[in-house]
């Protein structure tokens, strides 16, 4: 069991997984999202080879209305 933080909330995973797999659990089209792992943006083309592991802090953001 590993622990990660997604948008400030602690989450437990059975094992490390790629960003692509992590995004499978979200019901938003992947191109509506951007991902940071430990304060670094993960470019979309690297979703398949960047792995999320124990202690990682993930930010998962989308666009909302704003001025």
């Amino acid at each position, binding site marked *: 069991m590993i622990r990660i933080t997604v948008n400030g909330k602690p989450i437990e995973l059975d094992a490390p997984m790629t960003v692509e797999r992590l995004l499978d659990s979200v019901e938003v089209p992947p191109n*509506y999202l951007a991902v940071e792992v430990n304060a670094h*943006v993960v470019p979309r083309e690297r979703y398949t080879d960047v792995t999320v592991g124990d202690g990682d802090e993930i930010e998962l953001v*989308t*666009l*909302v*209305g704003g001025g």
Partner: protein
Amino acid sequence: MTPIRNDASTRNDITPGIDFPADSEGWSVAGRTLRSRLIVGTGRYDTLEQMRDSLDASGADCVTVAVRRERLYDRQGQNILDFLDLDRYILLPNTAGCYTAADATRAARLGREILRSLGNPGADWVKLEVLGDSRTLLPDPAETVRACRELVDDGFSVLCYTSDCPVTAARLKEVGAASVMPAGSPIGSGQGLLNRNNLRIILEYLKSDDPDYPVIVDAGVGTASDVSEAFELGADGVLLNTAIAHARDPVRMARAMRHAALAGRDALLAGRIPKRLYGTASSPEEGVISSRPYGSAADG
């Protein structure tokens, strides 16, 4: 910086020393041509349908969006991107709500990543906003300059929110902002343009050797006349959100803002008459059929 020419006695409503280029086909920001001089926000609408219709009525071709975590869907399960025609609008992601250069640059990079995924031309643009005070929502000038420099170095076209301080505006242009965007008054306050003189000085400083440099009045607009006023002063664009979104009839207000932008810009290019202390008759003074019982009061 050149000092402002103080010829306000006769031309007190126009910014001196600037030759404004006439409109032909739109205007340019960061190498891109926009048709509308309004940039409108997408926040604070009651519904996303109302937002979509208001954006349409405003005629804008560039709209701002915010980058946020959580609430990946709103309560109705809708995402704003399903209500924005990405072939029509350039999305301008903002860094609203950030209080440090570090947070603002992170938000900017996240926004860029989403817009790249969407294939939107706004991907390398950012509306930089680094706040310094949560009540006034005034910007932190030191953090804003720092973030602007970093984002310019990272390849961004930075459209930079700032106060109406001419010195800060000049510093932001120096560090490479694609557009400096002084506030008319605090964000969402609806107070209009509180310091016309500072806005005039900013326009003069930033455009003195560079008349096409875009200056956009950002924040504080309350109603249509504020938009016209900004264009009459010589602003290249106006960015607004709440004045439309919180109007009783947002779609109608969006249309009013569109007309106000056209009216203000036309008035600037047409050239207003000087203000005079005394009246000047519009009709011929000769050939009047009546006699004149009163002369000037000064004649006694």
